[in-house]
Each structure stands twice: as C-alpha cells, then as structure tokens.
C-alpha cells in the first residue's frame, strides 16, 4: 500500500516543530517526575534526620533525668518544705487573732463593767455579756464601743442584744454582739517574741 508523502519544505518544518514540542513535553514531564522523586527522597531524609535528632534529645533527657534523680532526696525535701510552708501560709492568713479582739474589747471596759460571758462563733461574731454596776458605767462602755465602730478600726455591727436589771445582783445585765474588723494572725510573730 502506498503512503502519501508530503515532502514540501513548509510541511517538513511544521512536522519537525511538532516533534520537538512533543519531545519537550515528554522531557519536561520526566523532569517533573524526577524532581518529585527527589522531593520525596529529600522529605524522607529530612524526616529521618529529625527523628534522629529527637532520639538524641530523648537520650540526653534520660541521662539528665538520671543525674537529677540522684538529687531526689534534696528535691523531695525542697518540695515537702514548699507544701508545708504553703499550707502554713494559708492557715496564718485565714485565722483571726482572737486574743487581739479580746484585748481590744477589755481595753474599752471600765471599773463598773464585769464580763461574765464571752463567745466567738467561728464566723467572726463575738458576743459579750456581763454585769454593769451602774447604768452610767454601761453607757460609757457602749459609747466607747460605738466610737470605735464609727472609727471603723475595731468592731462593726455592734448590737445590744439585751439590757435589764439584774435579778440576783446589784446592777444591770447586758449582752452585746459585734463583728471584729478582721485581724489576721499576722501579728503573731511579733507577739511571739514577748513570750
């Protein structure tokens, strides 16, 4: 069977160009494939390098942990001290200086006042009961207390719960409740020296 051959110079040029384009695209594709392969290899190698680096760090960490572990006793002591001091700090900061409150309270009394009942309910409420030899003596005591309430430096919410003539003794029975302005136990160290 005969083949049609077109041997015109223009046609031959066009065919050569088409062939070149095809070759170029093939070579380009092979190049891209090669690059992709190199990329994959590079990523794999890079990952292996990173894995190796991580393994080295883990080995160093283990070695360091062992040498730190040899100082375990010191660390335990430091940690125990920290736990106990933190707890003590909480205790010191949350306790009320009852003796200071009582001292402040008795400092406001006078010779006519005898304290016969005193209680603290744990929620900062102090209740004081007693016998006043005269109503004037009780007035002075109450005025002193209320002035402290106004100054807002000792007690607040002072309430006279009862005041009546004593049935068994000369004078008047009274009962007062008050909330001390919270005095934390912080002054304990200063007081401790005096003992």
């Amino acid at each position, binding site marked *: 069977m005969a083949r049609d051959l077109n041997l015109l110079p223009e046609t031959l040029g066009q065919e050569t160009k088409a062939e070149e384009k095809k070759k170029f695209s093939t070579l380009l594709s092979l190049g891209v494939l090669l690059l992709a392969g190199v990329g994959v290899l590079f990523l794999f190698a890079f*990952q292996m390098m990173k894995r190796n680096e991580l393994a080295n760090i883990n080995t160093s960490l283990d070695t*360091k942990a062992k040498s730190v572990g040899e100082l375990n006793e010191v660390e335990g002591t430091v*940690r125990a001290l*920290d736990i106990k001091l933190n707890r003590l700090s*909480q*205790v010191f900061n949350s306790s009320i200086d009852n*003796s200071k409150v009582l*001292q402040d309270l008795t400092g406001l009394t006078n010779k006519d006042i005898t304290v016969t009942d005193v209680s603290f*309910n744990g929620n900062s409420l102090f209740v004081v009961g007693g016998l006043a030899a005269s109503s004037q003596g009780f007035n002075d005591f109450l005025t002193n207390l209320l002035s402290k309430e106004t100054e807002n430096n000792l007690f607040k919410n002072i309430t006279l719960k009862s005041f009546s003539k004593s049935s068994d003794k000369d004078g008047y029975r009274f009962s007062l409740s008050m909330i001390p302005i919270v005095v934390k136990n912080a002054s304990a160290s200063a007081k*401790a020296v005096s003992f």
Partner: protein
Amino acid sequence: MFKNFNLAKISYVFIPTITIIVVFLLVPFIFIPFWQKIGNLNKDIAEGNDRYNQMVSKEKKLKEISATEERGKLVKVTVALPSNKDIPSLIVGVKRMVQESGMSLESMQLNVGQVSASSTAMVMSGSSFDFKVTLKGSLEQLQGFLNKAQSAKRVFIVKSFDGTSGNTSDNLLTVTLSMSAPYESLPESMGDASLPLPQNNSALDKVFSKVEKLVNYTLPVNPSQTGKDNPFE
C-alpha cells in the same frame, strides 16, 4: 489490529498524563503527610529541648541547695505542721499553754479517729485534727491563752469559744474552746524529675521566719523522774 500502534506517539501522551496524575497524587498522599510529620517532630524536638534546658537548670539549682540546711528547715516546719495528727505533742502543748497562762484545764475532748476535712473557713485545704478543751480562768488569763495558742509553734486554730462565769462569786470564766490542729501528710515519693522545682517565694520565706519565731510549747515542762531505777528494791 496493531498496525497503527506507535510507541513514540503513546509515550508523548502517556508520560505527561502520568506525570500530572503522579504530581496530583503526591501532594495529598506524600508531601502533606510528610510535612505534617516533620512539623510534629519539630514540635517534639522544641519541647524536648525545653525540658532538657529545664532539667539542666533544675540540676544546677539542686546542686546549689544545701541538703542539710533544707532538712533543718523541714524539721522546724514539721514541728509547726506535722505530717500526722501527732496527738501526744498536741496534748503536751495544750497543757503547757494552759499552765503558763494561769488557767486550769477542766477537760480535753479528743476524738482520735476523727479527721476534719478542711471544709471550715479557717483552714483552706489539707487535714486538721479537731478537739475541744474546757478551761477555767479569768478573762485576762483567757486572753493570755489565746495569745499563746496563736504564737505556738505547733500551729493551733481557735475555731470558736464559749465562756461564762455563771453565778460564781470568783468571777472565773469556764470556757469551752473548739480548736483545730492542722497537719499535712506528704506523698511517699516527693522527687519527680519531670516536674520543675518550686520557685523561691519571698512570701514563703516570711512564713518560715515567722515559724522560727513561734514558741515551742510541745516540749515537756520539767519532766520529773517517775518510777524507780530498780523496782525490786
């Protein structure tokens, strides 16, 4: 059938097509997972480096710390806050405080098996041992006792108290105090290489210097000799 088969012609079409397909498949199935793995590894390496640096600084700090000094401190702090209820020293302490304040100890109610679960407003966390003491004395003596209770090295908390002199002529108050003695038990193993060391804290240093100044009432007062050297004499 194969008369029009042209290998060169197929390769021109096949290779670019395969390339495009391979590249499109490589991105989601190879490049992105690899990239993510490398990202994770970088993160682990950074964390590992941080931990290593922390451990180096921890080791340096631990070597700088005097073990003897710290142990001494811990012993002092343990007197203030024992690791258990330590009831014997508690009784000695209370008796001595009562004695020194001039009051008389009427009764002491200890519930040995009971542990307060620190739910009170007074103690914020940890355990404490609650007990009650009934004392008799003047208001000034009570004040003195409360003062001692707050300056005692074995830390006590007066949770509440209730006192009355009733109709007695001596005007002495009979006071029932509800008290609490905090304690802190420690875990068996305290050293943990993976944890950072507690930071130096000036507030805690103040607490320690305060503890040092507190008075130790838990030492027995003039222990008198009891019994005989030879019971058969």
